[in-house]
């Protein structure tokens, strides 16, 4: 399997690198450090809080944008440009191609996140001159952000198997936003006490991935710790959801006639 998935993943990563997507991140890292200097000068006592909040939010938003915009084109572009024809003529199954594309984008996002995390660390070090014990939980928050990327990429890939990039972007973004507010949506249903609305909001709550649980930015910025059980829960949840999405994507894509 790795003999077929690996080359596709590496090629996907190479495409992102040659599209100069990664170079934007060097710019981001520099901006983070620049912002840290500025924030350090204008805020008294809350520099760390602002920098962690700003940094982790930027990592999250920037990565999500990349996951969605590259993700929705992962399969679509290969079909449109017909680069897939020569590839599928090799001994590779369609699901292996999908897993390879997925792994390649995830690798790209992981490298990006590493660069951005280094920028954040540099900014923190500049302001505080040293790291604190509680800073370790920043790594957990970054891990949760990566799990979000994994979920969003799987969603984008799934839609990319059967719809255009524009529609895929709308679907993925719609599900992400619904997932961020999943808890609130369920509360609204319960609040209305209308059985139809309750049924809809409950279905939505269980159907869309719950992104709310992956957001640890505020807690970490305030120096709070993250329960170890949440790490396991989130990991298990993300792996399960991604597996289901990749299986669904494979089922759709394996039966598709390539025009």
């Amino acid at each position, binding site marked *: 399997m790795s003999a077929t998935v690996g080359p596709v993943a590496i090629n996907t990563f190479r495409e992102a690198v040659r599209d100069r997507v990664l170079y934007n991140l060097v710019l981001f890292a520099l901006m983070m450090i620049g912002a840290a200097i500025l924030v350090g000068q204008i805020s008294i006592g809350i520099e760390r809080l602002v920098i962690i909040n700003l940094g982790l939010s930027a990592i999250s938003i920037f990565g999500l944008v990349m996951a969605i915009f590259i993700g929705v084109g992962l399969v679509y572009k290969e079909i449109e440009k017909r680069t897939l024809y*020569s590839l599928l003529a090799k001994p590779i199954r369609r699901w292996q191609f999908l897993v390879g594309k997925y792994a390649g984008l995830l690798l790209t996002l992981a490298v990006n996140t590493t660069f951005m995390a280094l920028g954040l660390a540099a900014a923190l070090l500049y302001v505080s001159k040293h790291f604190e014990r509680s800073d370790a939980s920043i790594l957990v928050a970054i891990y949760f952000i990566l799990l979000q990327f994994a979920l969003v990429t799987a969603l984008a890939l799934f839609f990319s198997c059967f719809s255009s990039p524009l529609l895929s972007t709308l679907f993925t973004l719609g599900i992400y936003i619904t997932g961020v507010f999943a808890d609130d949506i369920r509360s609204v249903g319960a609040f209305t006490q209308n059985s139809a609305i309750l049924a809809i909001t409950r279905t939505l709550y269980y159907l869309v991935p719950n992104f709310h649980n992956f957001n640890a930015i505020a807690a970490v910025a305030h120096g709070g710790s993250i329960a170890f059980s949440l790490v396991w829960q989130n990991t298990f949840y993300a792996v399960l959801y991604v597996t289901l999405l990749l299986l669904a994507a494979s089922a759709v894509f394996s039966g598709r006639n390539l025009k």
Partner: protein
Amino acid sequence: MSTPAIEILGLTKDFPVGFWRQRMRRSLDNLTFQVEEGEVFGFLGPNGAGKTTTMKLLMGLIFPTSGTARVRGRSIDDVQMHREIGYLPEQPYFYDYLTARELLDYYARFSNYSAAERRERVTKFLERVGLTAAGDVQLRKFSKGMLQRAGIAQAILHDPAVVILDEPMSGLDPVGRREVRDIILELKKQGRTVFFSTHILSDAEMLCDRVAVLAGGKLQGVGAPGEIVSIKAHAMEILFEPRDGRPLPAGLAKDAARIGGRYRVEVPEDGLYGALEQLHGCEARILSVSSVRPTLEDYFFRLVGGTVVTRGLEEISR
């Protein structure tokens, strides 16, 4: 009896059409034929005949409505079949951010070669298709002909027993066409089976042991090129320059067309010597004599009695 290289058994393909995709259009209708091991087999037909559809079905890029096919005894559903097959799509397009060397290395990875073997193969096949000098140039800078060559290289890189080429001469200059013909003949010499589509009759005549003719999604015949398509010249073309002041021979003056200071005339094959004698008589300079061959379009036109074959696509309701 040996297993055929390619065995096509009743392949039929319908595509949904219309906004609601409720109607179906048949683009391939119950296609059945075999390609034997070691043959160079031409797949002839006008645009829209179903040649590319057949090849895509063989490669598993689309799925048959009914029927099946086997390559060297393996079903087309079996992914391992692809180890024995090389494929050049029609008007190939590749990852344009890669160099030709990187592209071939990428495809070679699916054949489990070691890094050293891959390097050696890539260099060898770049040379084979005349891309050595352009090996480290990104494909986005390649011309159509160069892309076609890169496509052929990736199709034969892993020494497949069966090579399927969809319009391999398309977009190539005369030198490129000659090179592709040489590659096909070399593959034949190595005992490989080559199945290629074309709408150029002379390519089929020059290369193929047998051809299949497809029109409107239906098989019209399979056999040696001479049996299936009459390639006999139906006229001879003479290009000549009259001597200054001398009138054209009376027998040719009516049909001769003036091109600059020269004349071009078409005569029946059995009237060639008579025409040449007349031209000799008036001391005209003969510039060239060549046969006028029917085009594939002429052939198809005759085959279907004047109806437009591409309209033969059958539309059926779901």
